[in-house]
């Protein structure tokens, strides 16, 4: 992939994202028009309190999840894993549930912290197990992760059921941006910092994808990078689950699509993955707002369909050579 083509790719993706961003500001139950913005404060308020925060939240979530998936694929050396198919998101849910149980008045920040810790533990267990599955059967790892996730989900459901918290659980387990308002989404910015952090270690991540031996041979502290990657994945997932709920497939399909087009040199592709993740999620969110206007379809549902279809295309289409 030449540098020029690469830059054109980034530019194009950014333009698409900008366009979608504007569309997203305009779509919703209340009208926002340029005329109205100029004249009235009500529409300005709508924009500042609801529409803008929501759009920013979608962008941050999309970018964060795509990067979390990318990192996970690099450190497991398996293209078919992502946080929501590896028990990460479900572990985070379990964490929030436990905090809600023990300390209902806990702040959002504390819940995020707890969710991060459980996400970390759950994912670490998954990685340790997945590591020992035979590398000759790459599909076993995501399968194992999916079922592992659903077993964790069953535990969460069981707890929630016993304590009448099912309603909460359904909020966390299906991603939805309709409740995002100013003051309620800012934690997502943590994800943005982590995306930047990932970009700083992009070269190391690329090398990690070459395997443990190659990494150590090139002087990389493999164990520490593993921990760092795990940390980034867990925190991004936890923040997402706390603020918007589980959003499937973004981390799975976006890195794969970008890899097909631009290869796996993460220093070049990581920004594109982040932007594309934002694009995909924003497009799905807008779609969810339009399908049954003025009602909303949660983005988790839309993503479940779009993502599953994209994923099926990805795994059925033999890898193009060239």
């Amino acid at each position, binding site marked *: 992939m030449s540098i020029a083509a690469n830059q054109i790719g980034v530019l194009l993706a950014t333009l698409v994202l900008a366009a979608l961003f504007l569309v997203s500001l305009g779509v919703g139950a209340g009208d926002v028009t340029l005329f109205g913005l100029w004249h009235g404060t009500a529409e300005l308020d709508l924009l500042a309190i609801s529409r803008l925060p929501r759009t920013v939240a979608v962008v941050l979530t999309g970018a964060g999840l795509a990067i979390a998936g990318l990192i996970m694929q690099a450190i497991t050396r398996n293209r*078919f894993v992502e946080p929501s198919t590896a028990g990460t998101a479900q572990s985070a849910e379990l964490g929030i549930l436990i905090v809600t149980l023990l300390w209902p008045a806990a702040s959002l920040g504390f819940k995020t912290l707890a969710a991060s810790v459980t996400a970390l533990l759950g994912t670490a267990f998954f990685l340790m*197990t997945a590591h*020992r*599955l*035979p590398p000759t*059967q*790459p*599909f*076993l790892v*995501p*399968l*194992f992760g*999916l*079922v*592992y996730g*659903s*077993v964790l989900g*069953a*535990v969460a*459901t*069981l707890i929630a*059921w*016993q304590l009448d918290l*099912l309603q909460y659980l*359904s909020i966390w387990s*299906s991603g939805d941006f309709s409740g995002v308002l100013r003051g309620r989404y800012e934690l997502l910015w943590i994800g943005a910092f982590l995306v930047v952090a990932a970009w700083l270690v992009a070269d190391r991540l690329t090398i990690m994808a070459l395997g443990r031996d190659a990494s150590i041979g090139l002087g990389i502290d493999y164990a520490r990078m593993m921990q760092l990657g795990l940390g980034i994945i867990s925190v991004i997932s936890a923040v997402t689950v706390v603020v918007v709920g589980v959003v*499937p497939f973004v981390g799975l399909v976006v890195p794969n699509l970008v890899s097909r087009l631009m290869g796996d040199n993460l220093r070049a592709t990581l920004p594109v993955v982040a932007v594309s993740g934002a694009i995909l999620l924003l497009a799905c969110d807008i779609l969810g707002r339009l*399908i*049954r206007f003025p*009602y909303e*379809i949660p983005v988790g*549902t*839309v*993503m*479940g*369909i779009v993502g*599953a*279809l994209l*994923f*099926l295309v990805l*795994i*059925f289409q033999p890898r193009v050579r060239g």
Partner: protein
Amino acid sequence: MIDRRLVFLGALALACMVAFMTIGLRGNLGFVLSLRAIKLIALIEVGIAIAVSTVVFQTVTANRILTPSIMGIDALYLFAQILLVFLLGGLAYTSLDAKLKFGVEVVALMALSLGLILPMLRTRLDMGFLLLVGVVIGVLFRSLHSLIARVIDPNDFAVAQASSYANFNDINSELLTVASLLTLAALVFVWHARHVLDVVALGRDTAIGLGINWTRTQVACLLLVASLVAVSTALVGPVAFLGLLFVALAERIVTTRRHSILIPAVALVAIIVLVGGQTLFQHLLGNSSTLGVVVEFAGGVVFLILLWRGSRK
């Protein structure tokens, strides 16, 4: 001679049924007993449907960790159900007779399975791949189901939630007669074909060599599986790993894959787990709504263990 272990399982199943009917009886005896009898029949039916469909599916796919639900067939049923509502118009469809509706759904599911699942089984893909595709298809149809549900009734936020776990508590007993007939027919058919299934289990090439019409058998088995999945899903909702749990337990006990022994064994294990579990949860723990989740959890763990063991051989 009947296998001793089968006798033991039968006795245990019977004990569970008796316990289910008798423990904690209170109030109007006649009323309570008839209520319980209906529920008992439903539970047995669901158990048999899940057990037999899983055995047949595993045999015909030559795969020991596959269940119809893992391949997304029950999600397909939910989808077929809501698709019909969508196509035929909510009101017209809901005013149909429940039995007729169920019949239409079963046919729709059969058609969908033949159209979607059969080609996948035909391609003879690597097992892990097949499973992954099945799981993703399950997610796809569940999402489509909740999308259509919301399009039909935007305020019905409960739909998606309600359809994600099996509920053995409020069984849809309206369908009991149709479901019973269907299950019974399937049972007779499977019993009749038990020796053919033994041959099918040897794999496609050997089976053809032994004179089995492979295509016809595969289609027949899949249709059977589809109708049984429709029965269990219509009665209690989706179950992902339950069948796996039943078959794994039964195989452990009878240590054979011969269908003449395995099928009754699995059916009995299913009854023991479901009826016994329900007795335990409802009458002794006083909380029956969680049985579905608990067994699913156990089934999921069994699946992980099987996958783990199988992959490391």
